[in-house]
């Protein structure tokens, strides 16, 4: 049992840091509710939403007062004295986590003490409850700090979305810098790999698939949308701005990719609203589409009032060009040249491509949303049109905005919306810790107090997100620097009841199985020297093709070239865009028969039998559709599948040829393999077991040279390591 007192004392000792100001003058202070006080400014304590100002009164006593409760002017006065660096904010988070743990711990201890006297419980129930309490008490003590190896592997998986390469791992572990953890966090946040990692997260939320919509033969492409999302992550575009762009974008998906958000739910205006609520407000209101919500304060009419904000846009626009006639004209050219399939007179591919050219998000001013024809409540008539209005948050003044959906976007992302920021920090917290402050993340209740694992912490994170101008990178920069994040993963699984009642207080992150993408991307890391080097590009080409004046395509060559270029959109390329871009075909990135490139650069969704899908990658048809559950097929894929048997363990495999037998330090081959796969060096007994394989006799097959035997044995070590639970889980 860890010593709670000791932990708490050390932590408090470290955290009580005073930022003392040189200025000392008497001034008048005003609280947010108007009370006034004469006092000298001594300094501040803490940071962010829980910062305190230290004031010395005329009688010489010093008091602490919450900065959050000061008037706006006084807050500005204090602001420059408040630390806003990641370390200071991280300390505050740790303090809040510790406070909650302490409170919970003592509560449980008292309950345990009085349990024996409880007359209402049978002895059996008492014993059961006692075990539960003791288990929960164990989880109310911070875990030990991670080793450098554990931290490194975790931070790479969480920020870069993959395990570190051999070079990255040895560089970090050998570094003697005292700031190396903070430095690595900063470094990783600015990599291409971070954008890849976060793209997987967002594409699951936003349901981004290659074929943007099911209809039209899937010719409406998401490539521009994908690149736009990745670029927004790389630029660290403020999240509220990003959401406003999605909700208000006009035009075509190739010229203005943000408009793809509306197009995704083409023809499903009401579903689109439900999805927007789930993704950006963590609120499930689908049921109010058909009836008053049974538990939440949302009526059916509220749903339709919200939906009518989205009632004036269309996703298609009329065009002066007669596309059908153009397809017929071009089909004729192809037919005459004998380029059409037998028995066809009409080029269906051209028809489908041109069919997507009318896709265009635009605001028509015609309200399309009305109450359903079977509306049964007293507050409206069937088929009646309703005025847009919000049922919580700020009151919306439609006149101030160009379109109702612009008003909606403003309302949704406003600091006055009680759920927008909470939803974001809750989802990001879950990404780093494996569990949200509020679970489930798509069911944020109207009143947060008592519903979150740690209400004070959640409010702190909310304010921090606002203060940091909705920077996702800065959020991770702070959170990953906390002790809470850097402590060892929890060894016990929190129970559903515990999660439900908000009783898990984060002694460390929970032990998470890697996501499907993290597993796949780690396999890619073990396969190639530059795992993030291969990217999918095509937005530029798509834009060019879709803006082609179709009437100028006259000759067979022009038409065929147009079709061919269209088919190639979204091919893999290495390096940056522009002329140097190298287009590659189906063989790009192929190793051992498998295309080994990062998941974010692969087609989405992959077919159901692919490794990624088997391990639970979302098919992107539903919000948050990924899973991390185990299954027999997954185990078979790791035991017998091509990744572990052809890609990683063949004598030509990167790990064997380039790492174990490669240039560089003449280290031990087994050490190198362990470091590459698990991010740590082997324990002595592991090294002995692995080494005994190197001396193994022939298997009774054809005789082999010593070197061949050794390579086969190295392959065995790799196979065995990627099959461990240690590999699959994030410690």
């Amino acid at each position, binding site marked *: 049992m860890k010593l709670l007192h000791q932990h708490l004392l050390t932590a408090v000792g470290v955290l009580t840091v005073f930022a003392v100001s040189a200025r000392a003058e008497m001034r008048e202070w005003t609280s947010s509710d108007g009370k006034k006080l004469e006092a000298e400014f001594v300094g501040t304590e803490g940071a962010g939403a829980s910062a305190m100002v230290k004031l010395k009164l005329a009688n010489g006593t010093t008091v602490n007062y919450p900065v959050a409760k000061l008037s706006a002017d006084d807050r500005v006065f204090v602001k420059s004295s408040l630390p806003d660096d990641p370390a200071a904010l991280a300390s505050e988070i740790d303090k809040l986590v510790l406070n909650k743990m302490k409170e919970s711990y003592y509560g449980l201890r008292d309950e345990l003490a009085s349990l024996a006297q409880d007359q209402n419980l049978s002895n059996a129930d008492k014993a059961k409850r006692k075990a539960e309490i003791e288990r929960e008490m164990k989880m109310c003590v911070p875990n030990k700090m991670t080793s450098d190896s554990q931290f490194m592997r975790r931070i790479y998986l969480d920020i870069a979305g993959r395990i570190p390469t051999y070079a990255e791992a040895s560089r970090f572990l050998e570094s003697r810098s005292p700031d190396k953890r903070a430095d690595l966090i900063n470094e990783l946040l600015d990599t291409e790999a971070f954008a890849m990692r976060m793209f997987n997260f967002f594409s699951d939320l936003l349901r981004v698939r290659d074929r943007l919509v099911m209809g039209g033969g899937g010719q409406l492409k998401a490539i521009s949308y994908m690149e736009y999302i990745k670029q927004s992550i790389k630029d660290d575009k403020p999240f509220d701005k990003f959401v406003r762009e999605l909700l208000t974008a006009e035009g075509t998906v190739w010229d203005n990719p943000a408009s793809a958000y509306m197009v995704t739910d083409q023809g499903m205006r009401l579903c689109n609203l439900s999805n927007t609520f789930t993704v950006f407000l963590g609120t499930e209101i*689908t049921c109010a589409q058909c009836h008053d919500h049974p538990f939440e304060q949302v009526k059916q009419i509220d749903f339709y009032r919200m939906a009518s904000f989205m009632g004036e846009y269309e996703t298609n626009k009329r065009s002066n060009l007669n596309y059908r006639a153009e397809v017929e004209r071009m089909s004729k050219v192809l037919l005459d040249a004998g380029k059409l399939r037998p028995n066809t007179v009409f080029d269906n591919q051209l028809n489908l491509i041109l069919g997507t050219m009318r896709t265009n998000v635009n605001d028509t001013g015609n309200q399309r949303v009305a109450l359903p024809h079977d509306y049964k409540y007293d507050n409206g008539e069937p088929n009646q049109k309703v005025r847009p209005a919000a049922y919580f948050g700020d009151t919306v003044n439609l006149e101030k905005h160009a379109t109702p959906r612009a008003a909606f976007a403003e309302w949704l992302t406003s600091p006055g919306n009680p759920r927008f920021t909470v939803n974001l920090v809750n989802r990001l917290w879950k990404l780093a810790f494996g569990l949200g402050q509020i679970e489930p993340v798509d069911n944020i209740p109207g009143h947060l107090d008592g519903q979150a694992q740690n209400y004070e912490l959640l409010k702190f994170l909310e304010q921090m997100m606002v203060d940091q101008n909705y920077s996702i990178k800065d959020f991770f920069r702070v959170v990953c620097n906390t002790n809470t994040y850097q402590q060892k993963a929890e*060894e016990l699984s929190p129970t559903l009841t515990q999660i439900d009642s908000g009783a898990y207080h984060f002694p460390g992150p929970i*032990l998470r199985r890697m996501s499907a993408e993290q597993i796949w991307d780690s396999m890619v890391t073990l396969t190639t020297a530059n795992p993030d080097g291969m990217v999918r590009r095509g937005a530029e080409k798509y834009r060019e093709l879709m803006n082609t004046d179709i009437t100028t395509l006259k000759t067979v060559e022009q038409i065929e070239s147009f079709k061919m270029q269209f088919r190639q959109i979204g091919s893999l390329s290495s390096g940056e865009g522009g002329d140097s871009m190298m287009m590659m075909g189906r063989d790009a990135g192929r190793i051992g028969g498998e295309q080994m490139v990062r998941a974010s650069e692969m087609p989405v969704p992959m077919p159901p*039998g692919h490794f990624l899908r088997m391990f639970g990658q979302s098919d992107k048809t539903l919000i948050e559709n990924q899973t991390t*559950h185990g299954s027999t097929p997954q*185990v*078979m894929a790791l035991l017998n599948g091509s990744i572990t048997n052809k890609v990683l363990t063949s004598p030509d495999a990167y790990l064997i040829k380039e790492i174990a037998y490669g240039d560089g330090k003449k280290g031990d081959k087994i050490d190198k393999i362990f470091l590459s796969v698990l991010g740590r060096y082997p324990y002595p007994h592991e090294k002995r077991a692995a080494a005994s*394989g190197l001396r193994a006799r022939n298997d009774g097959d054809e005789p082999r040279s010593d070197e061949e035997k050794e390579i086969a044995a190295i392959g065995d070590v790799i196979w065995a390591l990627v*099959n461990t639970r240690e590999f699959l889980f994030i410690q």
Partner: protein
Amino acid sequence: MKYLKENLNKLDELSRRQFVARTAKTALGVSILPVAGASSKVLAAGGGTAEHCIFFYMNGGMTHMDTFDPKPGTETGGKTNGIPTGVPGVELSEFMPQLAKRFKDIAVIRSMTQKTGDHRGGSYWMHTSYQPRATIIHPTMGPWAARLLGKKHETLPDSVVIGGGGNHPGSGFFGPSLSPLPIGDPDRGVQNSDLPDNVSEKQFDRRYKLMNTFDETFRSEFKTDEVSAYTQFYDETLKLMSSDDLETFKLTNEPNYEQKVASYGDTRVGKGAMLAKRLVSSGIRFVEVQAGGWDMHQDLWNAIPERAGSLDMALAALIDDLKAEGLFEKTLIVLGTEFGRTPKINANGGRDHHPRAFSTMFAGGGIAGGQAYGKSDKLGIAVEEDPVDPRDFNATIAHALGMDLNKVVYSSSGRPFLVAGHKQDRATGKVVSEGKPIARLFG
């Protein structure tokens, strides 16, 4: 696998069979429930006579207007014509010609209704009889059958899902031991179930042993449920690999393979139906075949001939095949979907989500064919007669298979659940089934 094989060789033939039965039982994801023998009296509980079920699930919301409940000549009928079924006054859509010819074998439900217009919620309700909740995952019908009836076969899994997505509720709170075995592509069977060509058994054994050595420290430190579950999956998979049961999943081993593909159709749903038949012939109780592409918001009449046509072909071939093998009366065929589609045709030439009225189908397994049960109104908007909700739908499946609808099963948190949903009986205070089987389907 050396250890396993050495152990097996030491056993006499009888013990060996028992051993394989015991290991394979857990290996394909099935628990240690007692096996219900042929003489078992489970029929008394539900009364149904079906021993197997093949459940076709149409993802996306199958249009009732253009399959089983056409409304030709009305303002909502669209371009879909009706064709006769041999039963006066009952037509199917022109896209289901094979089933129309076999109408005497099928019963169509035209009065399905539920309340959720979103795919996930609707699909969840149809699969589990419960609406999604944040705190629990409810089990689907295959695992329910295993739970209530006991295991059907000694060494094969009780339920299989072919072509399913990532969001199938599976065995829910029953836990992983009752999970349906997922098969992605019917042609590929149980993927990766054989040792790769370049790996000898001896090498495999060596690797496996190394793996356990390398993983010791981690596993002794982290004893979470998730880690233990994976370790259990490894143990089970190893046992499975050394049993003969995998052959059942190899579709290409089906006699007259080419000929059968021609009649079922070389499509996902066709191959899925064909594999389902093969699994059922081998003794597996519950097979779900999922097929997508029904979310026809646009351009419906471009997609429907192929989508409905491939389903029609697969179902017809399955009926014929089961009959030829004498399995039709023992095998319940069910067709379900999350909702129907709006009678009103939208601007894009498609139909939108419509949970108020939709269609499903039953056949075989003691079902009295040649009938259309229930009625939607003239335009296909609302149910006019004999409404059937997802709980009644599942109650009908449960009844046909002989499950006890009122058998209460408690989750680990102590909440009571029933196979077709539950409510509290006002008079007795007891928890009873909310769903009612459709009696008229059973002749």
